[in-house]
């Protein structure tokens, strides 16, 4: 089965479930990043996993690189 891709129209309406703030899409690492919550939500097999307990905490030293054109 081909790997599913996240639906771009869906990504447009998703926000961080904790802060309701905007997310930036990291297409390379397949993550949705909430700067305010300091969390990166994984996208697995095209499905965004919008659960804080499944998200990767962003460490202080790693400020996520800006993704030009991917700011949602």
């Amino acid at each position, binding site marked *: 089965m081909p790997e599913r891709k996240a*639906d771009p129209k*869906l990504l447009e309406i998703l926000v961080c479930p904790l802060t*309701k703030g905007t997310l930036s899409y990291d297409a390379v690492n397949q993550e949705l990043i909430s700067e305010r919550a300091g969390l990166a939500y994984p996208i697995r097999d095209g*499905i965004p996993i*919008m*659960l*804080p307990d499944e998200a990767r905490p962003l460490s202080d030293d790693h400020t996520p690189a800006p993704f030009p054109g991917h700011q949602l």
Partner: protein
Amino acid sequence: MTVFNRQVVRQHRDRAASNLTEHDFLFREVGTRLLDRLDDVIAKFPVAVDLGCRTGLLAELRDSQGGIESLYGCDLSERMMAHSAMSGAVADEEALPFADAALDLVISNLSLHWVNDLPGCMTQVRRALKPDGLFLATMFGGETLHELRAVLSEAEIAVQGGLSPRVSPFTDIRDAGALLQRAGFALPVVDTETITVSYSDPLKLLHDLRGMGEANAVMERRLTAMRRETMMMAMQLYMEKYAGDDGRVPATFQILTLSGWAPSPTQQQPLKPGQGETSLTKFLANDGD
């Protein structure tokens, strides 16, 4: 107040995902009724979300018409979503990941009864809806599984000399209406219908509930503490008390259907007090005519 263990809810749904189609007759029946109601609504819904979509049953049942353009799924269980052909996200109904005023429709089929914070969930749904967006949901009501609840209580008191919640509490019809109002929905409507399922053996009912991912998340971790003896007695009581002439037992499911609209100035509004043109006193005085 936390009644349900959401981790357990998630586990139940994860476990039920692969064989759900063998046990989903109730979801199918109620889902069809929900979509019928949606067909009666003359409105277009460019962006819709199915909250607690499981493996995407509503997307499968809906025919191409019905005013929905894009229907996204949303479930707490990643395995449910993975088994679904829908595009969507894994999310918790208690912390929705949708932007304000992003959706035209939110539908939910027999899923919200596992949510601890229903007022919070509904408020988030209302905020995610555009003005004049529709929320249409079915939920299990308070009469659901009353037979099972009664016999489990009776057996547990008799065998173990105590009582613990074995069947999850469900929302009462009056509470459901109040919840919609409290969440800020306009034109809230709640109605109820009863579906009675007939089983040859009450154990088959328990098997189905587990297969539906509906084993009780209140009781789950204490299920092991329920003695085999208690369960046997409960099943025996179920047969004795409820079996019909054909030897089959009923299981009652009360279905609440809730609908409400995100407020919009274009909706019908109540008049401000003092704008009446006919005096009630005059009207009552003429009553004898």
